[in-house]
């Protein structure tokens, strides 16, 4: 086998693993969208916020310390303790649930029945709010997140595969963290599907997604379901934040993964869980392959736009996405 071909396979493998993470973030979107019709642009910032909170709790940072110091002239920064990773993750989850409740109570409960585009713009506002809030609470410097996940390339895979392609090929380089992330994301995706399909709350969630009033009339609490889906989205954001944060540090760019999830959704259809997964994989592999094969010729960094243009072209031919339901127009 030629080395180019094998490197191509490595690109595809890496693309698949990136795709699983895209799919995970996209799933957060789909959950909220299905249950409430809200297209949550703030999903990525939620991941950033979750990761910031996790780091802050682990290192015992005092929330809002900068602003407190600025007002009172004090110099507090840390409580002086360190919280173990698992406890910190649990506490962060509690913060995300509280956040879900607050978002529902103060924002979206007042926007029930508004047009989808208004809700979408409200989530853009929410994204700004949350980004500023995260920075105010924990500071905007780049933080490293150490929750004990393995780092670096897997020597084992590299050694195993180095013999395949002659002298030019040094084996597959695959990041251990990516592998862990893939496994975790896959488990989370499957458990979310199981939750939505088989649990009582999951069924209620789908009922709400289908018809708010009908769900209300059979005794489902809309409020509870919406807080639930926002909490689930918070959970997804936390996992995505941990994975991405461990990889490249907790910083603003983390919130941009949400932007990557958008074309995934367009491809897969906003309401389809399998669509989010397949779309994520297609985008992950597609953008890596495009960069590998054509990107070099036209200046590189095509990952910035490839996903969008692909989704745009795709949508022109199939406006409802891969798995979306066909829209029949009526008058």
């Amino acid at each position, binding site marked *: 086998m030629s080395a180019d071909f094998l490197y191509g396979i490595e690109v595809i493998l890496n693309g698949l693993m990136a795709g699983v993470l895209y799919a995970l973030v996209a799933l957060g979107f789909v959950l909220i969208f299905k249950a409430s019709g809200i*297209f949550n642009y703030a999903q990525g910032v939620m991941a950033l916020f979750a990761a910031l909170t996790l780091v802050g709790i682990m290192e015992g940072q005092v929330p809002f310390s*900068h*602003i407190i110091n*600025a*007002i009172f002239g004090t110099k507090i920064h840390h409580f002086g303790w360190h919280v173990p990773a698992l406890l910190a993750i649990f506490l962060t989850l509690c913060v995300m649930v509280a956040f879900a409740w607050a978002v529902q109570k103060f*924002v979206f409960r*007042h*926007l029930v029945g*508004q047009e*989808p*585009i*208004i809700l*979408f*713009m*409200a989530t*853009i*506002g*929410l*994204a*700004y*709010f*949350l*980004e*500023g*809030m995260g*920075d*105010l609470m924990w500071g*905007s410097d780049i933080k490293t997140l150490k929750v004990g996940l393995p780092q670096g390339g897997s020597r084992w895979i590299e050694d195993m595969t180095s013999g395949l392609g002659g002298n030019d090929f040094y084996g597959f380089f695959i990041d251990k963290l990516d592998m862990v992330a893939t496994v975790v994301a896959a488990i989370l995706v499957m458990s979310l599907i199981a939750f939505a399909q088989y649990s009582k709350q999951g069924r209620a969630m789908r009922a709400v997604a289908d018809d708010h009033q009908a769900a209300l009339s059979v005794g489902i609490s809309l409020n509870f379901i919406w807080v639930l889906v926002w909490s689930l989205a918070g959970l997804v954001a936390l996992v995505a934040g941990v994975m991405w944060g461990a990889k490249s540090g907790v910083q603003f760019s983390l919130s941009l993964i949400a*932007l990557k999830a*958008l*074309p995934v*959704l*367009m491809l897969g259809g*906003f309401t389809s869980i399998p669509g989010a997964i397949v779309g994520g994989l297609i985008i992950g592999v597609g953008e890596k392959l495009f960069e590998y094969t054509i990107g070099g010729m*036209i*200046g*590189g*960094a*095509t990952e*910035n*736009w490839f996903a*969008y*243009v692909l*989704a*745009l072209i795709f*949508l*022109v031919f199939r*406006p409802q996405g891969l798995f979306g339901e066909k829209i029949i*127009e009526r*008058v």
Partner: protein
Amino acid sequence: MFYREAGDFKTSYEADSQTFPIKFDRYRFWAMLAVAYLVIPFIINDYWANAILVPFLIYTIAAIGLNILTGYCGQVSLGTGGFMAVGAYAMYKLMTSFPDVSVVIHVILAGGITAVVGAAFGLPSLRIKGFYLAVATLAAQFFLVWLFNKVAWFYNYSASGQINAPERFVGGIAVTGPNTDAWAKYMICLVFVTVCAIIARNLTRGTMGRKWMAIRDMDIAAEIIGVNPLQAKLTAFAVSSFFIGISGALFFSVYLGAVEVGEAFGIQKSFLVLFMVIIGGLGSIFGSFAGAGFLVLLPVALKVIGVDLLGWPTDIVAHLQLVIIGALIMFFLIKEPHGLAQFWRIAKEKLRLWPFPY
């Protein structure tokens, strides 16, 4: 008490469709115009021009443009930054390729080029609707920024990758370049704002505006009463991009002078202009002024209060600004989806009845 339409009878349909139906409004409008043209140019200084007035005027043009597309035609776009970049780079190429042609013509041509690009990216709008389209316009945003970053022809192969506005004159007075006076910057922007606002008003009060609003309110019914949806949407994209292109051209050549595309015209710019339109009021030309003014003034005011008065570090004030803008967006969408323009209308309604509300 002077704010009445009573006794101000309209005797023709021309008079009935004018911009300011109430006499008092007409007087106030002319007074504002007189102040803007005859007073401010003589008292303006560099700080006021660069920190407030010039960005306010330029963003107003962009907000009018986006308002036509989003507020009147109902097509949400997140590609404003990308289209402003088209205007800026078209301006740069025109200025450097045809140095003898007047910059005023360059600005208009830059708007025209942006209109063509905008219409091209508007083509999918026939098939894609709502926020599918909003996300699709992100493709324009990211692709255009990437294009201007990677293709060296656009920045004339300069080593820094930046574009710099050469010095150009209108009637012997420098309007671009480092030696431009504050009042000259202000005046050229003011003229463009005035013309753009009048054109936008004319388009939106007549046939074109009705077509756009029909598409916005119910596209299927619009098509059945005789609106060609593709034509209506594409003209909205083109007209909107024309204004946004003009604003990008002025932003680069008059306001900043030197531009790095990712920094000046990134996705944040798209959001900023969208927020101006939401806060000012969707579907209102006056709202575009109000929204632009508000979001230009807010950071300045926060900086004055936070940094200069309270002595807080700049980064905290910047974060606080994000929180406040985000909260305001949500507040406006909940309380008043029609934005500042609606508050203004309500105030005027009250004023009409004052002091005898019954």
